[in-house]
């Protein structure tokens, strides 16, 4: 990719200003695990409690919620459940956020709103269209990657994501046929605009999927993560897998720690997931590197079926 002119660069450090948290590597990152048996109205209280537990101060902040919207198939569980997104929206509002928007740039479908309608977002979230930004069609800024893992020196990214105070990644807990697990970090692929790179965002595959996940994390290191792990997906995810009940919501300020914890819940060894290895170079991925609150991992662990090439990543007995 052509080098960008200096005047066009928004240094990666600008993105580091987003978010409302302390340096996640200064001490073990807190990861909250809460049981949630159903998609229902109680999710608002649960997510609000997790945000308070995480000490998140969003008063006066502009918050962007980034769910995972990929495809719609009524027979399975591809997308972040709209009730989780609605609960998060109301929880951030109740904690004093100045503005909460929902934003996503699906990787396959151009008609994002049609997809959102099929996935139940219009029906569940009042004024959804007014709150929503299609990141595939948003205005963009070039961003330079200072020390990229992938073969990309720069990316064009949507201004809605670059300009918010707190980016909240709201993924579905799923296995993934290329990278083993797709969670809060992989969910950031949806920030990369289709209007520039196309549908799918194939440039991320050619540059190295694991490396690009780590690079996007570098650009948004303090994104907050809330993982919809009530009913996830196992097997040939992220689209053609099978629904898998795990009954949890997992949240935290450090996406690496949150994703490592989710891997443990799915009985995947996070220390052997390459993008987590790259992103956690300094912080480590051991269980001790995160301070778990709420439910202990062991009490909510449920093995997600893995396709054959990832069976070596199965976490051994605890």
């Amino acid at each position, binding site marked *: 990719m052509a080098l960008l002119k200096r005047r066009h660069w928004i240094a990666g450090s600008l993105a580091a200003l987003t978010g409302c948290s302390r340096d996640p590597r200064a001490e073990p990152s807190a990861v909250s695990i809460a049981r949630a048996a159903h998609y229902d109205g109680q999710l608002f209280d649960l997510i609000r409690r997790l945000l308070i537990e995480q000490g998140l101060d969003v008063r006066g902040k502009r918050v962007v919620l980034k769910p995972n919207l990929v495809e719609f198939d009524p027979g399975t569980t591809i997308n972040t459940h709209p009730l989780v997104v609605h609960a998060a929206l109301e929880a951030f509002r109740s904690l004093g956020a100045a503005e909460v928007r929902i934003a996503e740039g699906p990787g396959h479908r*151009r008609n994002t*709103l*049609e997809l959102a309608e*099929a996935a139940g977002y219009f029906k569940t979230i009042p004024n959804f269209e007014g709150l929503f930004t299609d990141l595939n*069609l948003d205005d963009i800024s070039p961003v330079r990657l200072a020390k990229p893992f992938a073969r990309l020196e720069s990316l064009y990214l949507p201004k809605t994501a670059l300009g918010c105070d707190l980016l909240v990644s709201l993924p579905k807990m799923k296995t993934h046929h290329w990278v083993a697990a797709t969670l809060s970090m992989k969910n950031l692929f949806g920030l990369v605009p289709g*209007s*520039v790179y*196309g549908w799918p965002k194939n440039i991320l595959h050619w540059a190295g999927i694991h490396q690009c996940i780590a690079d996007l994390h570098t650009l948004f290191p303090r994104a907050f993560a809330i993982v919809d792990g009530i009913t996830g997906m196992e097997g*040939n995810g992220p689209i053609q897998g099978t629904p898998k009940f795990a009954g949890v919501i997992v949240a935290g300020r450090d996406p690496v720690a949150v994703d490592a914890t989710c891997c443990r819940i799915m009985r995947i060894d996070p220390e052997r997931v390459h993008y987590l290895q790259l992103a956690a170079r300094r912080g480590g991925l051991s269980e001790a590197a995160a301070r778990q609150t709420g439910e202990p991992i062991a009490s909510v662990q449920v093995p997600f079926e893995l396709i054959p090439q990832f069976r070596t990543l199965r976490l051994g007995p605890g």
Partner: protein
Amino acid sequence: MDPATRLLALQNPDGGWGYRGGNSWTEPTACALLALEDQPQAAGAAARARAWLQRLQRPDGGWAPHPAVEQSTWVTALVVLLGMDADRQGRAIQWLLERTGEDTTLLNRVRRLLLGIRSEYSQEPPAWPWFPGTAAWVPPTAMSVLALRKVHKQQPDSRLQQRIEQARQFLFTRMCQDGGWNHGSSRALGFQIGSYPETTGLALLALHGVEQARLARSLALAERYLQECRSQEGLSWLQLGLLAHGRRPAAPEGIPERNPLETALRMLAAKAAGGRNVFLE
């Protein structure tokens, strides 16, 4: 307010159109210009749009999707459809002819062979990527076919003819089991993947002139999609694709246009229903 007036009201002061307001982008601007150029009341707006696009041509002959992007991409095909002056058009066509999906380059074929990487597709004729250096996909390939066909009809050229035929083969290799098309991945890890309305319509448009028997399932699917689709963009491509094969599709009413691109596509579909399909002229 009629669609042309709505579209004109959304034009940016610089002459272009945005996807949803905001900065001008090449794709909505080219589509708006295709839709408006024969409208007498749009002459001034069309001239400003054309000037905006002309300023955006890059030294390599292609167009970037947005002024901030320093890379020519698939949108070059859309601008070729508009027709530029001979020099601009010639350089743009050359840019298109020099592009193929990275997966079909000799280097990558050899690499896959050496590494024993098996492709989902046994036949992989060259086609077009969205963004240089990446694989070929259905929408940029369909749009490039339409652009090169238009040029080839005016100035027959064997190089164009060869790329058009190869690209059409590519579209057939990427047809989904249901007869339609998605972004271009009809199979993955042995699983069949379903099609989408908008890409099915666009692929059918690019396959204009192909014998109907080869497309019977695709046309039947497109007619079904036309009754189910809830986006104006999808409906417009379906209508354009069906009209290209002699069908007279009646689209459902009341589906909103959500941005200038959808308004432009709706106008182009209406124009095609009236007998003038600008993608096939």
